[in-house]
Structure formats: structure tokens, C-alpha cells
């Protein structure tokens, strides 16, 4: 089981095309993350993280984790991209050059933690193993009995809405309270419907900063070479 070659062959016994799709997506994920590490322009990093989220959502779909994939696409590619952009507006546009000593220390810590995690996965049961603990006891009971007891075809729905109904109700209350608190903190109607919305005066006021095309140097990445070494000296 610990032999990587035999693990790869029994990874998806029935659907081998999906295995190659997963391999391609994982390669793209590695390329994207390395590019994110090497890029110093924060806007490019934000866009690459959106791309990373979309690709990993596709990877989750390939692993049949559709709900996780959907959360990843909504939160990772949608909301966090916009949040990162608004955070970027409060800081500089470029990452500051870092001290190489700190980077070496961080690399050592990352390698150690990553090695420990990979070592921990060696003990995990193979993907899709029917005898794995996750598929054996409670999970098997849900699979066998939910259709009879709840008479609903979707097992996830029966678990969420019936078996763990109180838990779900508590979660909904927590999320509702959090949303209410955020609305109270930000102020209801301050976004678009408030009294002091100044879309049109802002557009005019922006002319002082540089009208229309004059903004292009800002929106550009500076027209410098795309080499990521730009700010890393």
C-alpha cells in the first residue's frame, strides 16, 4: 500500500481518464502556487489565487466531493478574491523584499511540517477503500438505513436535515447571528442605498487623479518586464 506505483494503479480502478485529469490539475496547481510564491505584484497574486481556487474546485469535483468543490469556488474564487483586492487597496501594490534568512527558516519549517503530514497520510487507508473507518460504521449505517428511515434519495440531505437536524439548526442560528453582526457593524444601507452614496461625484472627482486613460499607469503593472524578480532584490 505504501508503494507509490501500486497505489497509483489502484487509485481509480474503474475510471482511468479521470486519474489523468487529476494529474493534470495537480500539476497546474503546483505551477500556480510556485508562480504565486515568486510573484511580487500583489494583484497578480490575487488573480492567481482565484485561478488556484477554480482549479482546486475542479480537482474536488474529480474526487467526487461536489459540496466541498462548490464551497471552494464560492469562497475561494468569488468572495476571497474581492476581499483580497480590497485589502490590497489598503496596503502597497507590491510585496516588500524579504530577508533571505527568514525565508530559509520558513522553508525549513514548511519542509518539516509537510514531511510530517505526508508521513501521516501513509497510514491512511487507500482512497475509496470500502473497509476504511470512514466508510464502515456510522457511514455504512447512513447508507443502508437513510433511504428506509427518512425515505429521501440524497444521503447528505437526510444527515443534515434529519439525523443532525438540531446541529444544523444551531449552525443556521450561528450564521444568521454572524451576518446580523456584520450588517450592524458595517451599517445597514451604507453600501448602495445610503444617503451619501456618491457614485457620480466620485467619477468626476477621479478626473483630478487622472482621467480615463490617464489611470492606465496605475492599472498597469508598470509596464516593466514580467520577471518576478522585479521587487525581490
Amino acid at each position, binding site marked *: 500500500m505504501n508503494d507509490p506505483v501500486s497505489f497509483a494503479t489502484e487509485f481509480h480502478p474503474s*475510471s482511468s*481518464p*479521470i486519474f489523468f*485529469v487529476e494529474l*493534470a*490539475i495537480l500539476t*497546474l496547481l503546483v*505551477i*500556480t502556487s510556485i*508562480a504565486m510564491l515568486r510573484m511580487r*505584484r500583489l*494583484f*497578480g497574486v490575487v*488573480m*492567481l489565487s*482565484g*485561478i488556484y481556487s*477554480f*482549479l482546486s*474546485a*475542479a480537482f474536488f*469535483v474529480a474526487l467526487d466531493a*461536489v459540496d466541498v*468543490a*462548490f464551497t471552494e*469556488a*464560492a469562497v475561494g*474564487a*468569488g468572495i476571497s*478574491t*474581492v476581499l483580497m*483586492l*480590497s485589502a490590497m*487597496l*489598503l496596503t*502597497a*501594490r*507590491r510585496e516588500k523584499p524579504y530577508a533571505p534568512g527568514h525565508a530559509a527558516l520558513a522553508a525549513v519549517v514548511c519542509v518539516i511540517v509537510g514531511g510530517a503530514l505526508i508521513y501521516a497520510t501513509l497510514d491512511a487507508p487507500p482512497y475509496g477503500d470500502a473497509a476504511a473507518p470512514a466508510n464502515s460504521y456510522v457511514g455504512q449505517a447512513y447508507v443502508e438505513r437513510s433511504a428506509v428511515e427518512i425515505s429521501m434519495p440524497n444521503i447528505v440531505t437526510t444527515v443534515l436535515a434529519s439525523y443532525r437536524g438540531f446541529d444544523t439548526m444551531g449552525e443556521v442560528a450561528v450564521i444568521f447571528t454572524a451576518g446580523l453582526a456584520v450588517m450592524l457593524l458595517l451599517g445597514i444601507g*451604507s*453600501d*448602495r442605498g*445610503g444617503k*451619501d*452614496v*456618491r*457614485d457620480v461625484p*466620485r467619477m468626476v472627482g*477621479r478626473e483630478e*487623479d*487622472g482621467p480615463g486613460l490617464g*489611470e492606465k*499607469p*496605475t*492599472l*498597469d*503593472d*508598470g*509596464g*516593466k518586464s*514580467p520577471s518576478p524578480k522585479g521587487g525581490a532584490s
Partner: protein
Amino acid sequence: MIMFVVATIAVIVAIVIALARAILGPSLYDRVLAGNAVGTKTILLLGLMGFLTGRPEFLDIALLYALMNFIATIAILKFFAYRTMSPQMRDMSPRLGNGNHDGGADG
């Protein structure tokens, strides 16, 4: 089946090309467009994966991704049109008023 395999390979190659533009792209709009293109190709890949595994009923997930990709791109572009999340956030922080000059100096 072979048609779906070929289409999947073509879509993955397209993702690679769009990703290269997102990494290399000199201007901001290249990166926005490349991100949008990768999202669209991901939607196509999801649909193709559904057909590869013989379960095309997952197509509705791909449709929802299409909606989300569209909304995210609109949000990013609108963000750069207005420079803030909402017009009033700009008024609250005086530093944001000359953010354009800062950005120009940085870029």
C-alpha cells in the same frame, strides 16, 4: 468516449495557455482576462469530467460555476472602476483618496 478524451486534453491545454498569460501577463487586464478564461475552461472541464465518468447530471454544478465566475469577474472589474468596495469606504479613510498616486509610484 474518445471524443470526450480529446476534448478534455484540449481544454487542459487551453488552461495551461491561459495560466501562462496570467503568470506572464504584463498588464492587469491580461490577468483579469486570464483568470476569467481559466474559470471558463474549468467549467468546460467539469462538464467533460461528468461525461468521462458517465454522470453528466453534474452539469448543473458547472452552470453554477459559470454564474460565479461571471459575478467574480464583474466584481473585480467594478472594484477597479470604483477603487473601493463601496463608495463610502473611500470617504472614511483619507489615505485612500490619493491611492492612485501611491499605486502609480509602486507600479
